[in-house]
């Protein structure tokens, strides 16, 4: 995300760049105020702890660790994971962009309902999605029970690919959707006016302008996929995380797992490099305030196809898991199980996620401004470290915090505060990603003007920059909230004793085949997460400046 403004548009994306490069270039060279760096450094402290811990472990690595690292199998799994991540990222980007365009640019009915339903798989823990797919398909699966017609089992690469795609495309959908709303519609209108087909307009005008948003969303997809263990292991696809978890389960020596986590970080850096390349050097802001674009009227076969695509996505991502969970619940109730609703788990999930979202939003402000508005090598590394933490398996981060917390944090160890800060650190990339994509669309001339009128650097940031990136920041906060709701590995190890969340309830029950008892908190998690999702999607209307 470290590409900002100040370069000439090299792909003809934004005519503004060609007109006034001088002013833009000056803004890019401006030095960041020191307090911004101090704030960003403070934000980075919790991210440095796990990285430093891994570094120390690697320095103390045993022979066993190097043997594991240099085995042919490790190399093979790295390649498998990278290929898998590429496949998931491409499919998630296609679905995410396609769904955003269909819901925003066409005159379809129930747009808002579709929008919420399409974003909803984000809140389903990917291992729950995997469990419901396993239970639904197969010769004796739920579908076979109901219809008498057995579907083949979906496992291995295909199953993992479908489940991870469904779990992650909402990242692209949400970030692209919010970018699409902010686009200056005049270019699209001009293209249409000149007789370009909707597809051509989309491909040549809309898509290039969406590149930073697509890249930001795809980056989250790729890093999430890379670090996922629950879903890929249930789907029996051998990924790199599998060796890391196996090292934790099967060894007293914990250095091999640390060395392998560092390999994951290196892969993440490759992904970050690829993202930077794909984003290009163009700029993406407009000088005009955006306004609503007249939606395309589609009829006949095209209309059916558009509805068909949206309904298919919703059925696979929400319909199938909800139907399976409901079937589990009904079967349990019919058997006479009592469904014991733990309200403590609900408040635990909501307060933990809310605190995480607020901390992440606060932390994202200095990081995003530094990386987008004051580009420098240091800012680029600041940005990268945020993404690197997002790509480390949560178990690794959690154990680092355990080590550090038990020695140095005293009563704060296993406290709600530390848990909330760890959540925010794990998911900070989602907040900076969304806020950065928003800020890239803001014309820096607005800030130039404020400075030109005698505003200080600080008051410009406070009164111009932050308000203009506010919507992106809120989207980021909502993403952090929704993903914290389903977080499990760090919660298990770092929560205050007795602190309960819905994700913990789902894990603890489903793990022992208590599917009926797992279904209730899983459905509740969905229902509760749908509320902020709905608010985020319906309240964040066009940027009315």
């Amino acid at each position, binding site marked *: 995300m470290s590409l900002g403004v100040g370069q000439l548009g090299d792909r003809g994306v934004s005519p503004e760049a060609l007109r006034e490069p001088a002013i833009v270039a000056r803004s890019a060279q401006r030095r960041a105020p020191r307090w911004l760096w101090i704030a960003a450094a403070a934000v980075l402290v919790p991210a440095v702890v796990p990285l430093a811990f891994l570094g120390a472990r690697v320095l103390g690595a045993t022979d066993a660790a190097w*043997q594991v690292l240099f085995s042919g*199998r490790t190399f093979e799994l790295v390649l498998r994971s990278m290929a898998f991540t590429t496949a998931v990222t491409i499919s998630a980007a296609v679905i995410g962009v396609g769904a955003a365009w269909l819901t925003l640019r066409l005159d379809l009915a129930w747009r808002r309902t579709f929008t919420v339903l399409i974003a909803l798989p984000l809140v389903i823990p990917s291992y729950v999605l995997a469990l419901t797919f396993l239970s639904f398909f*197969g*010769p*004796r699966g739920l579908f076979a029970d109901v219809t008498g017609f057995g579907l083949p*089992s979906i*496992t291995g690469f295909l199953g993992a690919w479908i489940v991870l795609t469904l779990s992650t495309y909402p990242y692209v959908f949400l970030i692209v959707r919010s970018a699409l709303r902010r686009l200056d519609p005049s270019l699209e209108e001009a293209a249409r006016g000149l007789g370009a087909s909707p597809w051509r307009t989309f491909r040549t005008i809309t898509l290039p302008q969406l590149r930073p948003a697509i890249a930001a969303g795809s980056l989250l997809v790729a890093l999430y996929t890379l670090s996922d263990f629950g879903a890929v*292991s*249930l789907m*029996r696809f*051998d990924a790199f995380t*599998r*060796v890391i978890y*196996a*090292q*934790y*389960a*099967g*060894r*007293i020596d*914990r250095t091999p797992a640390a060395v392998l986590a560092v390999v994951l970080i290196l892969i993440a850096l490759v992904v970050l490099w690829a993202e930077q390349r794909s984003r290009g050097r163009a700029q993406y802001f407009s000088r005009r305030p955006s306004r609503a674009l007249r939606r395309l009227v589609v009829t006949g076969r095209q209309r059916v196809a558009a509805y068909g695509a949206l309904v298919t996505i919703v059925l696979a991502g929400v319909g199938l898991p909800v139907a399976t969970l409901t079937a589990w619940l009904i079967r349990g109730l019919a*058997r006479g199980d009592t469904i014991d609703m733990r309200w403590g788990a609900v408040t635990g999930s909501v307060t933990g996620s809310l*605190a995480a979202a*607020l*901390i992440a*939003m*606060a*932390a994202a402000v200095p990081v995003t401004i530094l990386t987008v508005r004051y580009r420098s090598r240091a800012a680029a590394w600041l940005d990268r470290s945020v993404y690197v933490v997002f790509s480390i398996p949560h178990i690794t981060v959690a*154990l680092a915090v*355990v*080590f550090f917390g*038990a*020695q140095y944090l005293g*009563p*704060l*160890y*296993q*406290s*709600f*505060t530390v848990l*909330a*800060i760890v959540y925010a650190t794990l998911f900070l990339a989602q907040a900076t990603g969304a806020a950065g994509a928003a800020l890239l669309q803001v014309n820096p001339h607005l800030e130039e003007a404020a400075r030109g009128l005698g505003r200080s650097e600080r008051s410009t940031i*406070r*009164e111009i920059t*932050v*308000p203009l990136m*506010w919507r992106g920041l809120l989207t980021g906060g909502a993403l952090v909230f929704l993903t914290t709701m389903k977080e499990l*590995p760090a919660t*298990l*190890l770092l*929560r205050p*004793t*007795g602190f309960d969340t819905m994700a913990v309830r789902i894990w*603890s029950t489903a*793990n*022992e*085949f*208590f*599917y*009926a008892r797992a279904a209730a908190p899983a459905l509740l998690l969905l229902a509760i997460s749908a509320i902020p999702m709905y608010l985020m999607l319906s309240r964040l209307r066009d940027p009315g400046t």
Partner: protein
Amino acid sequence: MRGRLAFLFIPLALIAAACGGDDGDSITVYSGRSEELIAPLIEQFAEATGINVEVRYGDSGELAATILEEGANSPADVFFAQDPASLGAVAEGGQFATLDDRVLGQVSARFSDSAGAWVGVSGRARVVVFDTTELTADELPIDESAFTNPEWRGRIAIAPTNGSFLAFVAAKILLDGEPATLEWLRGMAANEAPTYPKNSAIVAAVDSGEVEAGLVNHYYLFRRIAEEGDVVAANHFLSGDSAASLVMPAGAGILASSDKSDAASRFIDFLLSADAQAYFATETYEYPLAAGVDADPSLPPLDTIETPNLDLSRLAEMLDRATDLVAEAGLL
């Protein structure tokens, strides 16, 4: 516009609000056994003794790693784990206190640590779970060695990353030696044994017709029956006196760093009491190991299982080797 930045102060408020308190008569248990199965038992203990129990539930292996990372500052008083390997890891790290002979004496010595760091609480037998629509019990071999034969290609599932499978491999190293164990693991890999992340996933896969059989612990099938009603999967107890017919205990130990060892030992006494042992027999379908309680009648009695003679304390020291061999065979 100023109002928008007010939220920056929320984290500060949160930090200020943080606190940590300690209750007098209260112990902290790290439990690798699931809340669904164990919480009722813990409530019984709290009611009977008035000792408040704070429980941190998690995965046994991850909790063992947590205790090792925490070192002497661990808030845990008791570690209650699913398998001897996780217990052994903490024992190897020197973080368990030695239990009283009075406690150790309640359980057959073969189910506890030989140095007295932890005591076995309930037993789980390694079995082959199989699909009764595809196989009959007499088609199954007497021990694990036959599963590397070509006729079993792709038909027998394993969970090579799971603690219980790794403990089985560690036991096999102790019983058959490293070369034979590696050869067997290579045979399983060559036979394309389908791999799953854990026992419950194998039982579900066998029951849903995805794979014919799998190497698991016996008690997952009973949970599956309770949840699904009719199942087509059944357990087969191997009879070959090999690692695959080992009975492995879930067990508990007291942390050396605990300053509440009295309350902690009362908790362990309770786990070995007739009430708790009967709970394991009827609710989790495990083998009770103390107080003379019998196993569920649907299980073969513990003394009829032909299980090899093995010092379980040595499993932990073989755990790293077991993981090495599993990796070397290409199963990770």
